């Protein structure tokens, strides 16, 4: 008489046995006992005592974490200063730029800005792995955009027509910074042309 193999018994335990195995184990006392022994063995394995570590490894983990953070801060420090200086330079020297001043230009840069906003919204920075360097650059670029947004918000609506050149210039700078932000986030490039 052919008996169940261990594979058959494990399949029975897992509820995926063949019809033959199911019928056989119901009729055969030997295989029934083997299946019961298998259940017992698995139950005993689950009931084995829990072993605990003899040494505390948390200090080693914590030290590694702190060392990694210190190194990251050092790297960020250098790149943050560089990026912030570049953004500041962009803002300081903007009066020397010349742009054509008309409503079409204003509409164009606003449309560009809106497109870039959409691109940034589609991109989920929290779901991406970002190096410290590019994170620092993004932060600096965002700060620069926030400064421009602040200036745009403060423009007196009555003066908008009179200061249209300045308005276009501000929007153009916003677009430039946003293009660099998109580039930095999407490509995660270390250098974004600042």
């Amino acid at each position, binding site marked *: 008489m052919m008996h169940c*193999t*261990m*594979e058959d*018994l*494990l399949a029975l335990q897992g509820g995926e046995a063949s019809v033959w195995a199911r019928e056989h184990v119901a009729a055969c006392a030997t295989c029934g006992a083997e299946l019961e*022994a*298998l259940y017992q*063995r*698995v139950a*005993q*394995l*689950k009931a*084995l*005592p*829990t*072993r*605990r*570590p*003899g*040494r505390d*490894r*948390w200090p*080693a*983990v*914590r030290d*590694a*974490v*702190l060392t990694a*953070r210190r190194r990251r801060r050092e790297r960020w420090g250098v790149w943050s200063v560089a990026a912030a200086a570049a953004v500041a330079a962009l803002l300081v020297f903007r009066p020397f730029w010349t742009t054509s001043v008309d409503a079409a230009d204003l509409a164009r840069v606003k449309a560009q800005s809106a497109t870039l906003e959409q691109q940034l919204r589609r991109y989920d920075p*929290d779901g991406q792995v970002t190096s410290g360097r590019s994170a620092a650059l993004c932060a600096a670029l965002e700060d620069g955009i926030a400064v421009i947004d602040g200036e745009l918000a403060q423009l007196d609506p009555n003066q908008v027509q009179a200061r249209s050149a300045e308005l276009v210039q501000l929007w153009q700078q916003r677009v430039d910074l946003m293009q660099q932000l998109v580039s930095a986030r999407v490509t995660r490039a270390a250098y974004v042309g600042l």
Partner: protein
Amino acid sequence: MFFRRMTISLAVPDVLVARAKAGDLEALEALYRAFETPVYNLALRVLRRPEDAEDVLQETFLEVVRSIKQYRGEGHLWGWIRQIAASKALMRIRREQVRQTEELYEESVAGVGGGAGVALGVDLERAFERLSETARAVVWLHDVEGYTHEEIAEQMGKTVSFSKSQLARAHTRLRWMLDEGVAR
């Protein structure tokens, strides 16, 4: 020590996970304390040597600290950490390539037991420790941790058939060792 006498609870408040994701060192330590025993236990059952299990414990939590932001709260946190721990333990098996040595050891155990007659006593824990590392990993992950053969195969970089045959072979050997009293 009080902590060691505590019942192991794998339930972790969401706020603790959120703090750990933000890099809060105290929260990270709390996670370590909550999961150090199950991680160590899993690693020890698979690898057998306490030093190796402690190394896996450390490697696992370094990975947890690095990757906790990627944990999206889908499923139990223990499931996520266990995945990392199992992966580290299996990686160690592959890296050290001690299987061949262990299989030779296993064969020698089988040889000794063959004519020794039935000894007294049953010691499943010792019998389990005498399995090869690969067999222990498959048995522990499947029978105790509840992994499917598909999951084990994926973690080990092997086929489902490999996982099934390892489990069957391991149980045959366990049964034999327990019957023969080899594990005593």
